[in-house]
């Protein structure tokens, strides 16, 4: 895979089917439904237990806004990912172009996905920092690879936004 900034877009080229599929998994991976530990992390309380009134009002007024914000980001990313639609064979050496105006949506969706995967798998800090871990031998290893791959993309987008 090659990644570069080209004018007003970030271009991921020579994508092999495996990485293309990981990219296509971003919106689904960011889904918080059905896992209480994930909901707890993504929609963490705004205060400790002493501020019960604030936490209750937050649930009513702020949480729905946050859900909408996160959903909008993953939808934007989902539309960009339609470039990768097709069967496995047609995914070979594909190119994905991310408009730089969608960079914020991508940062958010990638972050959502990383947090959800990490919460679902209960990854430790040690595991998350073990970048040399290989090869992928289990579902857990694959999830960790996914978190690191999405993190790599985040880093690249952040660097390009900084330029």
């Amino acid at each position, binding site marked *: 895979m090659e990644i570069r900034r080209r004018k007003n877009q970030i271009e991921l080229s020579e994508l092999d089917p495996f990485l293309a599929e990981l990219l296509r998994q971003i919106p689904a991976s960011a889904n918080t439904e059905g896992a209480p530990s994930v909901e707890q992390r993504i929609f963490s309380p705004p205060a400790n237990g002493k501020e019960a009134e*604030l936490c209750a009002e937050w649930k009513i007024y702020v949480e729905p806004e*946050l859900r909408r914000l996160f959903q909008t980001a993953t939808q934007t990313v989902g539309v960009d990912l339609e470039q990768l639609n097709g069967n496995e064979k047609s995914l070979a050496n594909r190119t994905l172009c991310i408009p730089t105006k969608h960079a914020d949506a991508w940062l958010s969706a990638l972050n959502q996905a990383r*947090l959800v995967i990490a919460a679902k798998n209960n990854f430790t800090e040690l595991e998350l920092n073990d970048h040399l871990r290989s090869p992928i031998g289990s579902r857990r290893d694959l999830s960790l690879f996914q978190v690191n791959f999405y993190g790599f993309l985040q880093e690249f987008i*952040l660097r390009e936004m900084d330029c």
Partner: protein
Amino acid sequence: MSTEPLGAEVAVPLIPGIVHPKSAAPSTVGAPTIEKETRAEEALDLPWHVVVHNDPVNLMSYVTMVFQRVFGYPRDKAEKHMLEVHHKGRSILWSGMREPAELYVQQLHGYLLLATIEKVS
């Protein structure tokens, strides 16, 4: 590239915890009393801290970018706070009145950081 911070969209008032001074009160005897009460409530309301807590998943560069965007901090100050979060587990990013503190926490949650508002005891 959009220059609109993600968190800006969620910056809606949450709880009207602050009593605002009455505006341009007519010359009645009641007006000065109201102003005094307002000052007293504001004094009781101070200070609140905006605290960001450590999270092993969020990238250091991402957290630094969020601090720059939300608080308008220069990069070196944002990095100092990010490192404090990383090494000490938490950092006080801002202190002041409750309403702006809540808005900052809302924005930080919009970026998926672990942030809380804490009243100084």
